[in-house]
């Protein structure tokens, strides 16, 4: 009888039921879309962070920032003037540790020894600036104009210098010295080897390199090609494609080679740390800061805080406006559902009064009203989930591109212009801009939340109506007649 009565009543009042269900559906759909977009933001942020960190890295350790010591570390390029008319190109490579700050390699062991650290691996991020080109000497010419070289004005021959100058090309790229013995950690993990192979664990000092796909395309590198860095030639053994955003570096070479190139023997710029328990990251961070002085520990949470740009704005919008809008719509939907259910009970006073007169307990009548409201809520939930899934699908299909600016304290010493995008790379001091496509993944939790809200909406509406129905007196069945 319960279900027959319920089904027939809902069918009879299908317009009102549809209004209630639609209101709830709208609220629930909003919650799903906002939730899934928030999830998408989280994933986008994760991708951004992974592109810096690589997979599995919980935190990085870098050297604590120190005041810049003048221009001692600024790159200097020396070109010699030549007397002959040689057209030989001159070039000068400068290989600098990123941020000009390094840590002793022993820090890696020290960090690895801390409680809660599962593994630690060091890496050396380098910025290479190659300036190459040639000078052409100016030629002395006799004529009317030009620079008067000798004699008084108006008297004697005139000479002028024609031509001459310099044609130089500046090539800037980043190189990352990776610890090939520990391939599971570090920035290279966020890239996939799409051609050739990655480093063998035995290639600790081999003259081999893995090139980032984008850089390889630009420089027409392929597996088997060679690249020259500061006079040293490396064979490209593989091409790595970043899974999201930009790659951590243009070229990856074994750590020892990077140290040799930069003259930073036994030095690293960043230590990548994986914690044994992801819940204990805070404690591990504190332990490292305490026990390994002179370092800065950056967790992914810290780094996430430095994300700015449209990704950050969108995340803020989802967290702020989206959340409150969902809550407002839900509250309104719950209220409307409650009031409509209550008013429906008012219109059925005689009906419920009659049932009570027939001996139906208040509880049974209330259950009937609540049952109808809950089914209404569930219909709203199904509609809302369908609408929400459609919304999330549209967001994912459109995949709006969000820009994320990551990073903090600029490019380190070098002054304005010295630390632009080319200084980007792994580590705290990097300033990096990435573009990520926004998706709206709908999780099982979100669906469970939607179902919960639908039931809650139904129960709230049912509570309004049920309360009203429970207060009806059986005498009302007769009173209405008079």
């Amino acid at each position: 009888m319960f279900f027959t009565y319920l089904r027939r009543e809902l069918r009879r009042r299908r317009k009102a039921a549809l209004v209630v269900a639609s209101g709830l559906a709208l609220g629930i759909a909003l919650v799903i879309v906002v939730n899934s977009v928030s999830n998408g933001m989280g994933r986008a942020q994760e991708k951004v962070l992974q592109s810096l960190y690589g997979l599995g890295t919980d935190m990085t350790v870098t050297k604590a920032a120190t005041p810049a010591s003048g221009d001692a570390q600024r790159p200097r390029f020396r070109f010699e003037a030549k007397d002959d008319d040689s057209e030989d190109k001159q070039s000068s490579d400068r290989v600098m540790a990123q941020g000009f700050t390094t840590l002793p390699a022993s820090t890696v062991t020290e960090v690895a020894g801390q409680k809660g650290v599962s593994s630690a691996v060091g890496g050396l991020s380098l910025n290479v600036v190659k300036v190459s080109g040639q000078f052409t000497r100016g030629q002395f010419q006799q004529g009317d104009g030009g620079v008067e070289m000798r004699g008084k004005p108006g008297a004697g021959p005139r000479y002028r210098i024609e031509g001459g100058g310099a044609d130089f090309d500046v090539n800037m790229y980043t190189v990352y010295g990776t610890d090939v013995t520990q391939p599971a950690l570090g920035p290279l993990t966020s890239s996939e080897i799409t051609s050739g192979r990655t480093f063998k664990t035995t290639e600790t000092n081999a003259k081999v390199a893995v090139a980032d796909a984008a850089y390889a395309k630009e420089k027409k590198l392929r597996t088997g090609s060679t690249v020259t860095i500061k006079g040293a030639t490396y064979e490209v053994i593989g091409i790595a494609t970043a899974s999201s955003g930009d790659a951590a570096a243009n070229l990856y070479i074994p750590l020892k080679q990077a140290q040799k190139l930069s003259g930073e023997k036994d030095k690293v710029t960043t230590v990548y740390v994986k914690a044994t328990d992801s819940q204990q990251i805070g404690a591990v961070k504190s332990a490292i800061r305490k026990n390994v002085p002179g370092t800065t520990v950056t967790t992914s949470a810290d780094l996430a805080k430095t994300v700015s740009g449209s990704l950050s704005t969108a995340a803020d919008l989802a967290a702020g406006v989206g959340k409150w809008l969902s809550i407002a719509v839900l509250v309104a939907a719950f209220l409307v559902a409650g009031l409509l259910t209550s008013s429906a009970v008012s219109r059925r006073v005689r009906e419920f009064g009659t049932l009570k007169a027939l001996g139906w307990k208040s509880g049974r009548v209330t259950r009937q009203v609540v049952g109808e409201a809950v089914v209404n809520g569930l219909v709203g939930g199904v509609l809302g989930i369908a609408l929400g899934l459609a919304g999330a699908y549209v967001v994912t299909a459109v995949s709006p591109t969000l820009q994320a600016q990551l990073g903090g304290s600029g490019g380190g010493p070098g002054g304005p212009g010295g630390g632009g995008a080319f200084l980007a790379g792994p580590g705290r001091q990097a300033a990096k801009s990435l573009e990520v496509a926004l998706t709206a993944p709908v999780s099982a939790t979100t669906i469970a939340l939607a179902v919960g809200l639908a039931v809650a909406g139904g129960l709230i509406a049912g509570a309004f109506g049920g309360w009203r129905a429970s207060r009806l007196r059986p005498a009302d069945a007769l009173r209405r007649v008079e």
Partner: protein
Amino acid sequence: MYELRGVTKRYTRGKDVVHALDGVDLTIGDGDRLVIQGPTGGGKSTLLQMLGGLDRPTSGEVVLDGTDLAELPEARLTRVRSENIGFVFQSFNLIPTLTAQENVETALVPLGIKAADRRERAAEALKSVGLGERLGHLPSELSGGQQQRVAIARALVKQPKVLLADEPTGNLDESMRDEIMDVLERMWKEHGLTFVMVTHDSALAKKAPRLATIRKGRITVTEKTGA
């Protein structure tokens, strides 16, 4: 058997106090047929509500088979209604979305009778009022007289001791009225019910063996011999 002693019902409307029933004393024996008549607002329906345990008096006793309904807790009063009292209303008060059979079944739901038994008993009850062919019809598909017969079947399906009818023919034309009164009379006789009916209809009142008239909350009972 009903025994009403000093039953008073007062309503407060704003600053006015309305005495719907004013010290009513009344005895209705088992199997009696009582017709209650009186002007509108005189207290007829209020008296019927007291008899049916739908409302409680402000003071006085409404004793049914030794139990004072005025003092019973709500749950027990509900039980008394579900087991012993059948109601027929002027406007039939059928659930519009339920079929004739389902409407009759609603009276058996509180008794915890299984669905199959409910259906069977409801069908029998409808057959007994001449609606055996209309089991699956909705109230909107039935005439007024047929709807009232469904309501009578609903009132009687649980085999109550008492049948209370509040102007059962008030919404029906004359031919329907006679038809319904015939059914009610037949049922009263067949089931040995205590039958109390409120009516405005003087023709019906005249036929009653016992007539109670209520004016301004006060009752006068007229016994007719040989009726």
